[in-house]
């Protein structure tokens, strides 16, 4: 793939220059980046409380609650995105509910825009955020927090000064894996996105199946690959790769 990206049919950098010359491709790359940042942010906001709850309940309760994360995790992405299409569509569940309640008089557009892409991606990526968070939080010695209570800290202060800093390793691992997966996302933007929600992976697919331009598709994929590897290398220096898998060798 790497070689093809330079060959068209002889050695050339043309395909890479093309990415930089056409503003539309830069736009798509920036759009991918922006979308991934938003999605990762929301995944953290939703994932942190969940991981906290899981690590602070009895083991039996945590195992039951885990089902809520594991079942979506092992359910086909197509099924999940189809479900969101059903929920958010013009005749979908939310719209018919709001119409019946008289909140709105005409259906609102919830599907095929950036909003639906974000909802779908957060739904898909949330377990990837929670698993590393939970595994780190579970390892935190709870007696440290109790010690803070004993020394007169309010629960909020104890959380902020003791628990939160200790959980940062999990936050980092969760952010990294979520962001990396978000950057390469294809199915959700393709199904739930509108015309403006084009991401790099959709460009790649388009170049292969519609434009038949293998070389250009390869150079786009190579940019995506390098991007992913750079993020991964920078962050794993701080994190240690084994944390992401939740296991070590």
């Amino acid at each position, binding site marked *: 793939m790497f070689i093809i990206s330079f060959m068209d049919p002889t050695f050339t950098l043309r395909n890479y220059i093309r990415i930089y010359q056409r503003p539309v491709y830069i736009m798509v790359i920036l759009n991918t980046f922006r979308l991934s940042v938003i999605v990762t942010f929301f995944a953290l906001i939703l994932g942190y409380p969940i991981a906290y709850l899981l690590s602070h309940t009895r083991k039996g309760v945590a195992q039951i*609650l885990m089902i809520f994360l594991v*079942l979506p995790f092992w*359910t086909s992405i*197509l*099924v999940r995105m*189809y479900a969101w299409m059903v929920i958010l569509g013009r*005749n979908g569940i939310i719209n018919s509910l709001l119409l019946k309640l008289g909140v709105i008089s005409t259906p609102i557009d919830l599907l095929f825009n950036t909003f639906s892409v974000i909802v779908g991606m957060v739904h898909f990526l949330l377990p990837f955020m929670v698993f590393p968070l939970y595994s780190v939080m579970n390892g935190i010695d709870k007696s440290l927090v109790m010690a803070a209570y004993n020394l007169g800290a309010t629960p909020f202060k104890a959380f902020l000064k003791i628990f939160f800093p200790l959980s940062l390793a999990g936050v980092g691992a969760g952010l990294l894996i979520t962001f990396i*997966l978000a950057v*390469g996302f294809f*199915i959700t933007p393709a199904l739930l996105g509108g015309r403006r929600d084009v991401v790099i992976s959709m460009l790649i697919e388009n170049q292969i199946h519609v434009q038949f331009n293998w070389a250009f598709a390869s150079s786009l994929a190579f940019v995506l690959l390098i991007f992913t590897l750079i993020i991964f290398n920078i962050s794993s220096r701080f994190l240690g790769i084994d944390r992401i898998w939740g296991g070590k060798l």
Partner: protein
Amino acid sequence: MNEYPGEFVKTYDTPKISSIEILFYTFCGLIFLFLILPIFIVFPISISSSKYLEFPPRGLSLQWYRNFFGAKEWVSATLTSIQIATMTSLLASLLGIPTALALTRGKFKGTQFIYSFLLSPMILPVIVIALAVYLHFARLHLVGNVYALMLAHTVLAVPIVLITVSSSLQGFDQNLEHAAMNLGANRIKTFFKVTFPLIKPGVISGALFAFITSFDEIVIAIFLSGSQAITLPRRMWDSIHEEIDPTIAAVSSLLIFTSILLLLSVAILRRRGERIRGELENRS
């Protein structure tokens, strides 16, 4: 924060905190609903009698399930997927188990590096992998070939087998292996008589996860299915693009049911694995 012993909590158990707690639990509850509701929403639609998406459905019917089992393209796509997923799961286990064994038991330089390298398909964008295998197989005229899809899916499935098997390899007392070898068993015999029975639950869960990884895989299927090897996700992908009729809700319900079955069997396997381990510890 009720899990702390009473004496710590009482002093701070003021109304203000419990209202924060209520807020916290409500927030968490909403997130759990957000996670799980979409999974169960497709079921009522799949038994609706109307052709259009309606919620709640007006009448009940099984016509969409009949549609699925009656349509040749759906059935053949399902069979193709089962075939590819079975082969992928076998191949990934055959490759993954020895590798896990080598990496956990072997004492040579670079195990950590090799492990990370082998897990890398999990973090690389699937579209990059899909494109790479597509370009490769297209030149060999293997687009639309079942075995090509199997090979590509194996790339994604090996890391999963590797993780489950190496974690179960680390989970038991290595002295059991040493004891077997002391008693005169060679390495191969030790593996089949001692190691394998102990890691069997992990091996089967790994194989099941590998199966579902391939069975649900769509991005590679979009590139490699061609017109000959249409998998079930590929058929769904086309169908979502063409017409949204509740047949796909019926398929989705069946897939969710499959996932639930799979997770149940993995949970049972895990419990069994813990029991075997517990018995061994009691004996020693």
